[in-house]
């Protein structure tokens, strides 16, 4: 069974972003970039399926600028077998990425596609669902547990009220939530091995996709700032403030 995993290169989750004063966007100059945390979980899950003998091959794909190759090498070091970079400098939005991935699904014919549920830069939470729609596949989003058997996947999902389990036929699209697994640390030997694994570069035109964005960003601004607060010396002072000043109790 082949598993396809999609990963995105994003700002590192520890970085506090700064909005540019001209409101054209966020300042990304010299900022540390990393694999989207949810996508790390996706690669880890696929690797575990491979180690358990359920998956026979793990193919990892990323769409974007040339440095995405580093992100792919990290995925290969975690345990993916080969990588594909869909290289473009164009601004990529979820619908375009879903179309690019759909073209690769047609080409690679995986039994399972795993993506992170959302990217921590745009926080869109759309790509997996859109890919499933375009490829006419079932979707199992926000997965916290994944079991594959007999041509089906049983997925436990994190929903607002608690947990839900659904069963989907394969091939299917799964998006990962935080508690699906804890990604392994990448070891130096695996990083060295990853350098020799195949990494193919294609262009959106090769896949027959026009990745032009549909949403225009008119401006990016700072969120409303909270007024600074005070420290209170003890519980009595806190209650007094909450009752008389804030009037919330």
């Amino acid at each position, binding site marked *: 069974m082949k598993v396809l995993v999609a990963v995105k290169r994003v700002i590192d989750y520890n970085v*506090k*972003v700064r*909005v540019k004063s001209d409101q054209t966007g*966020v300042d990304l100059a010299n900022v540390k970039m990393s694999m989207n945390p*949810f996508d790390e979980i996706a690669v880890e899950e696929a690797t575990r399926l491979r180690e358990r003998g359920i998956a026979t091959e793990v193919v990892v794909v990323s769409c974007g600028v040339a440095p995405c190759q580093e992100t792919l090498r990290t995925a290969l070091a975690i345990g993916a077998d080969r990588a594909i970079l869909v290289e473009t400098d164009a601004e990529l939005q979820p*619908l375009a990425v879903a179309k690019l991935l759909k073209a690769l699904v047609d080409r690679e014919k995986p039994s399972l596609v795993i993506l992170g*549920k*959302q990217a*921590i*830069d745009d*926080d*869109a*939470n*759309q*790509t997996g669902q*859109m890919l*499933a*729609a*375009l490829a006419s596949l*079932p*979707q*199992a*989003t*926000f997965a*916290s547990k994944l079991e594959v058997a007999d041509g089906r996947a*049983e997925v436990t*999902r*994190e*929903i*607002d*009220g*608690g*947990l*839900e*389990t*659904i069963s989907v036929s394969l091939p299917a699209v799964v998006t990962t939530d*935080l*508690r699906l697994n804890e990604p392994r640390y990448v070891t130096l030997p695996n990083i060295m091995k990853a350098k020799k694994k195949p990494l193919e570069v294609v262009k959106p035109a090769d896949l027959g996709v026009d990745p032009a*964005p*549909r*949403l*225009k*960003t*008119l*401006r990016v*601004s*700072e*969120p409303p700032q*909270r007024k600074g*607060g*005070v*420290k*209170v010396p*003890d*519980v009595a002072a*806190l209650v007094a*403030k909450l009752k008389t000043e*804030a009037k*919330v*109790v």
Partner: protein
Amino acid sequence: MTVLVLAEHDNHVLKVSTASTVAAALRVDAAVHLLVAGSDCAAAAQQAATLAGVAKVLHADGAQFTADLAENVADQVVALARGYTHVFAPATSFGKNVLPRAAARLDCAQVSDILGVESPDTFTRPIYAGNAIATVQSTDPIKFVTVRPTSFDPVGGGGAAAVERIEPVADAGLSRFVSRTVAKADRPELQGAKIVVSGGRGMGSAENFKLLEPLADRLHAAIGASRAAVDAGYAPNDWQVGQTGKVVAPQLYVAVGISGAIQHLAGMKDSKVIVAINKDAEAPIFQVADYGLVADLFQAVPELVKALG
């Protein structure tokens, strides 16, 4: 212009997120129709008809909508959407799961988790865990939008729209519901609660987490948790507040033993008043707290319950 709003409900009653989504839809200055798709959901459809500002309710009923299976609910939206200029859904786990699937089927982009409506094609939304606000304009013929419920005051009742029973789409047969464990709480639901008491890694254990219960009881509050607390097993996943958990905006948010990571702040920094109790004076949470108490929570919390009387 007409907006189709995908209602969130449990077949008997609407969730509050629906009324907030209708409020957002009304800002587009268009007629608003509500789609209530479910299994034996006539009661929810009847309630939908009473929401202020709703012009029409479309009621689609069938077992294929059990547990809001995305493939079927999205198919239902797609079957109707071409008659509309906008399709709105709440940015809850339900709406987030379903709407992008419908949008892609109609080759449209989606604007996720809007905070405001600037014009019928322009919306504001949070990016980078809410550390930046993007104003985006959709160029597609149908605007697919998910709505952050805490950003729009829910509409009231008093409406009397017509309810139209429509032919439900067939079961796509791609997925099957197996089971659900939904916590039945005696407390307010986290998402709409006026007061939230939240615990972090500082609580130390699932047993200790119960320390927050008398405080939550006294304040009639919902209980929330940081990701660290959930990951450590101190609290269930549906209590998680944060960038990828629930976004809450209560009148009062009490953060107990929570350090205040960027991702947690994303889920609660729109609270009207924030109180932080943490023994680490340097914890980042104190930067957003209106009132910060540097203290041992194991002493401070019981003291607080007593002082509130």
